[in-house]
């Protein structure tokens, strides 16, 4: 065969393979809640709440801890608030109830206080100056909800708004797997 024909055939094979790749990649890689931290000890978090109460995550070993990364102007954060309220209330009534914390992302103490005054939710709101906690967890975009087990291991990451009932369901699953 002539070199031109060999070249054309070779090129055809390469381009066909390339097309297969393009067809396979539909862009939806499942932006699911993956994180390198899942199953790993949680990063250390030392901060204060907006009421100046000190907080250290290492001291909360023994409790389930739920971190909700939040900003009072972010629409999905506002949307998920009722679900979060219900969840927190249920948990507060359990003996091994999870502790819910809001981690304030790029927002002022005043705005956060005003939001919670208007929408209720009496759990601690933790300051995150410069987003250091968000970076430590690898938070891409608020809202994100993370669950840390009583041994201090990161167990779950939820991206975006939590839908009603999802947190309850996930907590039940996690508790069951922890009991084993």
């Amino acid at each position, binding site marked *: 065969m002539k070199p031109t024909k060999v070249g054309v055939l070779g090129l055809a094979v390469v381009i066909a393979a390339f097309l297969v790749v393009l067809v396979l990649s539909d862009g939806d890689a499942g932006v699911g809640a993956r994180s390198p931290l899942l199953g790993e000890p949680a990063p250390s978090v030392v901060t204060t709440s907006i009421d100046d109460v000190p907080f250290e995550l290492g001291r909360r070993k023994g409790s389930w801890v739920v971190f909700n990364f939040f900003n009072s102007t*972010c629409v999905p954060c506002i949307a998920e608030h009722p679900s979060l309220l219900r969840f927190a209330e249920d948990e507060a009534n359990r003996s091994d109830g999870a502790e819910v914390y809001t981690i304030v992302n790029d927002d002022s103490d005043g705005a956060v206080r005003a939001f919670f005054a208007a929408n209720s939710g009496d759990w601690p709101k933790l300051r995150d100056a410069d987003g250091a906690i968000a970076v430590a967890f690898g938070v891409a975009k608020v809202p994100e909800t993370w669950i840390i087990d009583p041994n201090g291991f990161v167990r779950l990451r939820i991206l975006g708004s939590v839908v009603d009932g999802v947190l309850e369901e996930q907590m039940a699953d996690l508790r069951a797997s922890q009991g084993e």
Partner: protein
Amino acid sequence: MLLANATAQLGRAILLAGFLAAFFGAFAAAVGARRNDARTLRFVPQFVVVATAMAIGAFAVMEWAMITRDFSLAYVQKVGSRSTPALYNFAAVWSALEGSILMWLLILAGYVAAAMWWMRKRLAEPLVGWAMAVMLAVLAYFFLLSFGPANPFVIGPPGVIDGPGPNPLLQNHILVMFHPPILYLGYVGMTVPFAFAIAALLAGKVEDGWLHLTRRWTVAAWGFLTFGIALGGWWSYEVLGWSGVWAWDPVENASLLPWITGTAYIHSVMVQERRGLLRVWNVSLLIATFSLTILGTFLTRSGVLNSVHAFSESDIGPWLLVMFAVIVAVSLVLVFLRGDQLRASGSIDSVFSREGAFLVNNVLFAIFAFVVLLGTVFPLVVEAIQQRQLVVGEPFFDQLTIPIGLTMLFIMAVAPVLPWRRDGRERMSQRLVVPAVVGVAALALALIVGASGLAPLMAFALGGFAGGSALQHLARAVRVQQLRGFVGRANGGMIVHVGVILICVALAASNSFTRSQEIDLVTGQVARFAGHTFELIDVVEEQDSRSTSVRALVSVDGGKPYAPSITKFTRIGMNVGTPSVRTSLTSDVYLTLEPPVRQDSGQARIKVFIKPMILWLWIGTFIMAFGTVLAIVPSRRRSVHEIRDEVVGR
């Protein structure tokens, strides 16, 4: 119901009519060309006229809907707003997917009509007939795209009386709104030479006549593409506020790829015209250029490359992919079947001849294109194989393209002095002395100014070398031909080279020697950085229904205040920073306002970039544009080859 949405109905009807006209036009042209039947071919112009009219009509209807703020249309709901100023509102038509396909359609129809007008006396020839068939087929497909997956005339949910307007990033400068049309003039213009290349293969008319026919079209389209890319860089620098002109993101790469293969073609086609060699290669480059424009459109419009925007509103992706596959498949089959007829008997005897240099240049461009394409699609490959996300970013492209660019500068210096057909080593050693001295002088100057680092210094030295060579060529041409020495492909091309060299040198300088610093300013206190003083005069807050913007008035070196700002679009949840730049020939002082923004505190954090030689990027761009125009103007001297072809062709 019919009356209520008359606009939408009208728009769709026009698109359908346009599709039918283009489709049957393509059919008629193909049949006519196949049977070599002049009577059938005579119908083609009528179809072209109708299709073009329909493309203009569809665009006009969309504009009308936008201007009258007809919020019954989903598209107007998406990009229209009662508060958008008239000019931005006009340009808002092409600020989202459906409208941009409509714009593509309009420009394509314009090109088809122009090509037909220009070929009006030769429409009976099979070559022209096949070319019209290919162009009309592409046009028909775009009508189909606009009628089907990217239909702008979809009726939106009722009751909407106002919309968000176009993306705020696109509303900062009116030139930005004209960036897409200019880029499209480049992309779409590549359809014409592509159509003639395919026609030459189909007609089995493999002499080089079609090359002369399409040369100017290619150069013109290439010029628009260049200018469009440069405008994108300017926008990135003046508006986006990260102080750079090029970030190697997929959208930018998609526009660069056809530019690279197009540039390679413009060079290697000269070998074919002069020597009749590299025919298969040239046809392949044209095919590659056109299919890369389609691939680029697919990559950027279908959402495969940006996982964040995975939920693309349109399902145009598969359509473009099918188009890409068909173009590539048809072209490969044609080259496979006809390739041997294309093979020339001649040979290139020496690397040190002009044609040898062009060949080396083409190998470099091929590597360049491969690197850019690989880096752009590699995330897709990894995703397909390992289901994980990956980004290939600026550092990758920088590391691999800098050596390629430096080698290109070297070739750019050497090639213009090389003779056709023979070993030019002797000529090199004679004629390159002056350029080499210029290169050494440039290097010395750079060292005196304080430059360091191997890559930028080589860029300066080779830039001087290549610049000296180009100027020397121009000087010789002017001595022989007086003012005509600036005109024509070779001379105009040298002017383009000067522009390219300026851009390379400016990129090397601004990328390597930028100094930056974040500074916390307090009103009334003077801060110093890199020999400049910065004083905060005031922090001003402005608020309107859509956004809050904060601008810091900063006096640089005691002069008039510059006002970098941050605008927070509350509804969209987007922060847009706008820089403020003091430009001069040697260096720019580039200011951005940085978060956290504290109003009423008399404080502001700014970031200062001192960027050398940025202005020369834009000067180089204009020199390139100017040179392109001069290269299109015909030069008086014509080669025997050219004249023979014209005579034989008739």
